[in-house]
């Protein structure tokens, strides 16, 4: 098929899936947080609030687009564009799965494979600071300015340990292309322990993984590092003066950054689309089994409804689960769905961790944040990098 046509179709599919994921990630976050805090969360719009993201989008689009009179208009309007553009860009180099055959066309489940893929993501995410910094400055508001300043200082500080943490697994796999990084993590030790970077010899990258995750929380301005938008100190931080779609753009950028970071952690440390254990021991049947068990559990819960509507919603969820399980038995779809399932499962687990931590941990104080980055994270990442390079050099002899 024509290269341009194929690229456009793939880009459209990826963009649609990414934007839907962002919308429902927000729904999932609200639901999970609510359950952590013993509330029920959104449940008015659609069954279990499933149409809530749609309602939010309609609300934000139809709101009046106000521009406060005291702002620097050009930069005020530019900032959300910068934030959202640089947040959505990295998805273009992330591989979701292996090479697949769709109706006779062989293609990779990835938009494009750069030989400097990791550097590209680092470069694009380092440009994302401008959106936040400019928004804070152009709003001409002291809370916004403080939020913008905090955010730029925090992102510069935590970029160092993050880059060092990324460098150590790169020494093991010896490439910068994200596709080759995942291919290098294929296989198992003794048939059970996967050769992912966090388990791979000569020096398993478990410390680098933890440092990367912590730095990623700070880079995406999430709890416990959400000082740029600390509600009880700064109203809403850098986006205090923003409303309607401009506010939605910042919101979307935050969630897109979360997804990017989760994808990067999956690719670099958790073996991308490689399954958890070898297909010899039946990992290919795991997705279908998982969906079947979910469906049976939903059906069982639906028989004893705790709430009035559970009689209808839980069996419907069970049917959806059974259909998903059935899809894995179709030979044509199996090859596409299996890598996607493992990739999505790992990314989903990291995103769940994000939300879980938001519901659990309080916020850092600002001096603690900086102290933690420079006095603890940076030296640990450095030592880890040194040990990794030493052991890799010895092992390659």
């Amino acid at each position: 098929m024509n290269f341009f046509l194929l690229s456009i179709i793939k880009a459209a599919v990826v963009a649609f899936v990414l934007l839907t994921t962002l919308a429902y990630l927000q729904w999932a976050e609200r639901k999970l947080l609510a359950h952590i805090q013993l509330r029920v969360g959104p449940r008015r719009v659609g069954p279990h609030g499933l149409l809530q993201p749609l309602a939010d989008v309609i609300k934000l689009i139809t709101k009046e687009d106000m521009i406060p009179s005291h702002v620097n208009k050009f930069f005020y309007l530019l900032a959300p564009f910068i934030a959202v553009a640089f947040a959505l860009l990295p998805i273009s180099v992330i591989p979701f799965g292996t090479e697949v055959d769709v109706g006779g066309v062989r293609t990779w489940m990835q938009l494009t494979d750069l030989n400097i893929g990791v550097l590209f993501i680092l470069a694009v995410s380092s440009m994302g600071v401008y959106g936040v910094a400019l928004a804070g400055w152009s709003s001409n508001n002291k809370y916004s300015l403080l939020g913008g300043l905090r955010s730029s200082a925090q992102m510069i500080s935590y970029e160092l340990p993050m880059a060092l943490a990324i460098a150590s697994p790169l020494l093991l796999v010896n490439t910068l292309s994200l596709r080759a990084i995942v291919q290098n993590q294929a296989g198992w030790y003794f048939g059970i322990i996967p050769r992912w970077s966090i388990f791979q010899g000569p020096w398993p990258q478990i410390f680098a993984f933890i440092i990367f995750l912590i730095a990623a929380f700070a880079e995406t301005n999430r709890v416990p590092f959400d000082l740029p938008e600390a509600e009880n100190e700064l109203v809403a931080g850098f986006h205090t003066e923003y409303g309607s779609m401009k506010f939605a753009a910042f919101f979307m950028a935050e969630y897109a950054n979360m997804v990017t970071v989760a994808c990067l952690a999956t690719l670099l440390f958790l073996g991308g689309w490689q399954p958890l254990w070898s297909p010899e021991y039946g990992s290919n049947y795991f997705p279908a089994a998982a969906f079947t068990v979910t469906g049976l559990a939903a059906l069982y819960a639906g028989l004893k409804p705790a709430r009035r509507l559970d009689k209808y919603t839980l069996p419907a969820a069970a049917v959806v689960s059974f259909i998903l399980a059935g899809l894995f038995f179709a030979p044509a779809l199996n090859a596409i769905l299996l890598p996607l399932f493992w990739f999505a499962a790992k990314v989903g687990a990291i995103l769940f961790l994000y939300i879980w931590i938001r519901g659990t941990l309080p916020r850092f104080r600002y001096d603690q944040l900086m102290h933690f980055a420079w006095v603890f994270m940076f030296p640990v990442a450095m030592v880890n990098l040194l040990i990794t390079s030493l052991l890799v050099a010895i092992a390659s002899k």
Partner: protein
Amino acid sequence: MDLIIFLICSVIAVACGINLVLQKHPISAALSLVGVMGSLAVLYLLLGGAFIAAAQIIVYAGAVMVLFIFVIMLLNAGAEPAGRKRSYARLFGPPLLAIFVLLIAYAIQARLPRSEGVQFGRFTGGSPEGIGIKVFTDYLLPFEVVSVLILIAILGAIVLAHKEIR
């Protein structure tokens, strides 16, 4: 295709460069500089220097300029008041600048040895591996000297920033 992208990016780079000088507000000027660096990175990519392009964005646009903007925001620097311009400066300045630029262009053109024009995609040594091998074989001494230089700069910054405790 390469030529079109080259023309677009070089025009953007030059326009941002001129804008950098003309802007009165420090933030606008700093952002123009980011524009220059971004379009330069694309030019490096066109020439086959993928690693240099990424480093350009990460180091210059992503770290150095963010620090610049951080400091400008911290000091809350406002727009520069327009200085009084002499009428003869207005009259003779632009033509003299144009002559100066042309002279330099001519001097460079005349002194450099004749060579064939640059062709996009011919240079292939710009990958991270290529750069790494070059840095640790042919250019090991300059590389180490630069690292010592940076260490001295860091020490100097610490000495300057350190408050004396009496």
